[in-house]
């Protein structure tokens, strides 16, 4: 974290910014894991709790905005300090989005708890574990400015995309098999999409780690295994 500025209060402000990001990230991690837990246990009460908990993350995001604007206006940060502030602004909005996804998963849990479970829920839970790990790793890389960890996270997004594509196919298949599955499968599809987005944000946070440390984001396209946009599953017996 920031230290050694001639003006000590500059350090204090930068450190405060880092601490709020860490707190936001920690909260979003808990929100996400609670949302997935509630989904697994079909626990409506817990889901409601998660949905209500999102407000705290939004409040912290406002605090980051306020701190960052005041740092830019009053301290005119340069070089690494400037990148720290810009990084904090961007990462906080990414964490806030992850919080929103957790909240959306929680909301869908209430609907899903009212219909019979379908087997693809297990694969969705697996995607949940993967993206939670990615998100945690991305936050760790950002907070500890760890480039190695950031690169690992970035490479794992491929796995998340591939898993999401296979969930997409699986859900379509179950819906075709029995229209009574459509409600639960559609909700699960949105849950999976939310989780896939968490993976994307984890990747973006990892890229911000590169930006704050090196002054540039990593070059080269990442491999993208999300083929769901092009996926067609035809009912058996046709064509």
């Amino acid at each position, binding site marked *: 974290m920031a230290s*050694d*500025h*001639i*003006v000590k209060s*500059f350090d204090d402000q930068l450190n405060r910014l880092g601490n709020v990001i860490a707190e936001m990230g920690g909260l979003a991690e808990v929100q996400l894991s609670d949302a997935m837990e509630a989904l697994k246990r079909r626990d409506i009460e817990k889901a409601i709790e998660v949905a209500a908990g999102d407000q705290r993350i939004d409040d912290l995001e406002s605090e980051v905005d306020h701190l960052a604007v005041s740092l830019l206006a009053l301290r*005119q*940060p*340069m*070089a*690494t*300090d*400037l*990148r720290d502030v810009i990084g904090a602004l961007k990462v906080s909005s990414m964490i806030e989005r992850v919080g929103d996804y957790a909240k959306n998963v929680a909301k869908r849990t209430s609907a899903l708890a009212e219909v019979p479970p379908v087997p693809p829920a297990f694969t969705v839970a697996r995607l949940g574990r993967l993206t939670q790990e990615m998100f945690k790793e991305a936050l760790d890389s950002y907070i500890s400015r760890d480039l190695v960890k950031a690169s690992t996270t970035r490479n794992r997004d491929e796995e998340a995309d591939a898993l999401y594509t296979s969930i997409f196919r699986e859900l379509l298949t179950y819906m075709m098999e029995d229209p009574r599955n459509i409600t639960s499968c559609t909700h699960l599809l949105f849950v999976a999409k939310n989780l896939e987005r968490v993976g994307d944000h984890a990747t973006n946070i990892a890229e911000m780690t590169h930006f704050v440390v*090196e*002054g*540039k984001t990593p070059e080269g396209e990442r491999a993208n295994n999300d083929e769901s946009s092009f996926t067609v599953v035809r009912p058996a017996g046709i064509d």
Partner: protein
Amino acid sequence: MTGMTAEVMTPKEVETAKEAAIAPKFVTKGVDVYYAEKQALTNVSLDIETNQVTSLIGPSGCGKSTYLRCLNRMNDTIDICRVMGDILLDGADIYSREMDVVHLRARVGMVFQKPNPFPKSIYENVCYGPKIHGIAKNKAELDDIVHTSLQKAGLWNEVKDRMHEPGTGLSGGQQQRLCIARAVAVQPDVILMDEPCSALDPIATAKIEELIDELRVNYTIVIVTHSMQQAARVSQRTGFFHLGELVEVGETEQIFTNPKDERTQGYITGRFG
């Protein structure tokens, strides 16, 4: 670019002008400066690009002003000062015997930290240089030079009705712009500025900065400044000096967003201890 006017140039002249625009105005190589036994600059190699603003930053005593003063041999005025290395203006060694120092200082003008108009009228402040260098043939031409110089320095509208009042009666910012007009009047190639805004308020500073941006079209500008924000605002290239060495030079944006050297990083982020 001396004396370049709006006249139509032949293709050959255009080519030459283009080449001149691409080549750096100043090339300096391995410059060492000593004040008696004390070494003030060590092995400074820096190219000053034509029609760009180059800012030199660094803590007090780092050698940036010493370097600036090498560019028009202002250091010659200090007896104990020795300058070594190559300093080429448009390819010509300015420390060679053939170099006419008076002519050099007309080509490479200077503006100082504290506005220092002559204790004479505004008109005389500006016309003095062209007069002694024989740039104007007659009174009408001289009037014209005074007019355009004051216009280029963004001062004309403020002083046109009081040309014969003393220059020292102007405000600090106006005096500094008068000094810029005085430098511009002798048709220089390069203008050196040593902390030109440190004695001015923010509005006068903004006017000078706007002026620097306009002057860049016709002149090459080197500015020494203690304000990093100012360096960031006005210059295209920035050089960071520390303990008599040129630590890092590069595009201004790169220096302020992603400096390569830790000492630069430490200085611009306010971590120098």
